[in-house]
């Protein structure tokens, strides 16, 4: 599903955010990406979502070489990925329903399909009753769940989450992780970037750890996570 082959990302400042990173994530995996801030997590996610292009090396996502993606192709590529943001990136000038509907409208779905899929996604995250509310009226955990509903409404084959539990208490974090697990269980490849080691340890899943732009750990931690 995802393949990084000797990927280096050097920013204009001359700093290498990622240095010769190679990794592979198979279809249907649930993988955590961890590391201190500045270790290259965000860069890796930006490369994955075609926000940035690699300086060297190859990135293949779902069979597409991201280095060769033209500007015009990027939107269509992004429609196959669901992205969950730390600060959820909801729009407060419209209802929960309309926020979740965005990816479908962008892709040009018929209104009936939009309504059906939006309600299905909201049902999945347990917020169907709040579809008409403005997301600003929701709690932090609920807002994040709206963000997740929006990320999955298009039924992407890949779900990428950047610090999805960054602002949530442990209980809500566990709830969000539970959702990711459910999506993963139906075949979605999920990549979650997080520095919440405690949570990652409890999930007992494959972990990729970055340090200073290099991949320093790849495996399922036994009991005591060694990375970082």
């Amino acid at each position: 599903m995802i393949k990084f082959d000797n990927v280096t990302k050097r920013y204009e400042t001359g700093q290498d955010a990622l240095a010769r990173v190679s990794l592979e994530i198979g279809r249907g995996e649930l993988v955590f990406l961890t590391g201190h801030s500045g270790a290259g997590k965000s860069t890796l996610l930006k490369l994955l979502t075609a926000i940035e292009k690699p300086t060297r090396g190859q990135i293949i996502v779902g069979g597409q070489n991201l280095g060769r993606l033209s500007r015009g192709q990027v939107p269509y590529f992004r429609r196959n990925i669901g992205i969950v943001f730390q600060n959820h990136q909801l729009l407060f000038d419209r209802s929960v329903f309309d926020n979740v509907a965005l990816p479908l409208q962008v892709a040009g779905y018929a209104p009936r399909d939009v309504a059906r899929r939006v309600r299905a996604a909201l049902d999945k995250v347990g917020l169907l009753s709040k579809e008409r509310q403005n997301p600003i009226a929701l709690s932090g955990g609920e807002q994040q769940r709206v963000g997740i509903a929006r990320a999955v409404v298009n039924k992407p084959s890949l779900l990428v989450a950047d610090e999805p539990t960054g602002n949530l208490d442990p209980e809500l974090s566990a709830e969000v992780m539970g959702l990711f697990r459910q999506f993963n269980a139906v075949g979605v490849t999920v990549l979650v970037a997080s520095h919440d080691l405690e949570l990652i340890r409890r999930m007992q899943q494959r972990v990729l750890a970055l340090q200073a732009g290099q991949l320093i750990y790849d495996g399922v931690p036994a009991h005591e996570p060694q990375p970082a």
Partner: protein
Amino acid sequence: MNHNRPETSRRETAEPKLRSGASTAGITANDRLRGWLLHHREMAAEAWRRFMAAPLSSAMTSLVIAIALALPAALYVGLANFQQAVAGWDGQPQISVFMDKRARPQALQQFAGKLEADPLVAEVQEVTPEQALAEFEAQSGFGDVLDGLQENPLPTVFLLRPASANQAELETLAQRLRDSALTDSVVLDVAWVQRLAQLTALAQRLLLGFAALLAVGVVLVVVNTIRLHIESRRDEILVVKLVGATNAFVRRPFLYSGFWYGLTGGLVAWGLVMLGLALLSGPAQDLAQSYQSSFELRGMGVTTMLLLVGGAAILGLLGAWVAVMRHISGIEPR
């Protein structure tokens, strides 16, 4: 990007199953076209809602556009009216040949025959002294004075329409007529007709330049307004781009906003011109009457109005296009 919800709110329990790879497979080309059309409709409506949501600032922008367009439009209407007023003079030169009072009728007949045979003369109209007198009485109001005269002081006049407008040929013809013993004086009415035509051409040229400059002004006003719209919706643009919106999708609402600004501006400009015409029609009629003219101030024809309003809408669209081209592609997720 508000969405029209259909009334049906049925929940489908089978749906939440997320299958890998089933991303956009469920969308046909037909769906896409319908979705595209729907998006256009929604964006047009939403841009209008946004326009109405800030009535004061929208009105200001529209008014600026309207004033910029009303000026050349008013000049255009004024020029059209001027041309209408002088339309009686078809711009053709005319030669008035005043015959000697002592010329005998037979000689005049011969002279007229020669004129009609002349290849340089297209048309000859004879005004007899009696006709001239009657016309003079009717128009000048000096009938009583003329009644006191024992004989008609007016000569026979031939009004010639030359076959060509060539200056040299006209002069030759006039000179030949002057040389004839039968003519008293020959007046070549060419200079002022030409001046009028030249003046009109000058006014048209000025109007064109003026209109072009103000059109550029309108475009710039819209560019600036739309740029502010784009800035204020930066977050939204970033989010829709992250969920896979193409630049065309992002541009659409702004293009419609520009269109609405232009259209409303054009309509207000039309209103301003009509208002100006209504205010001027009274005095213009009085003036025309003092010249014994049946001239009436003409408004803007339907075609001109459509041109004005449509042109304004296109200028608005153009301004919005410039703004989105310059600013939207620069807003990319970082």
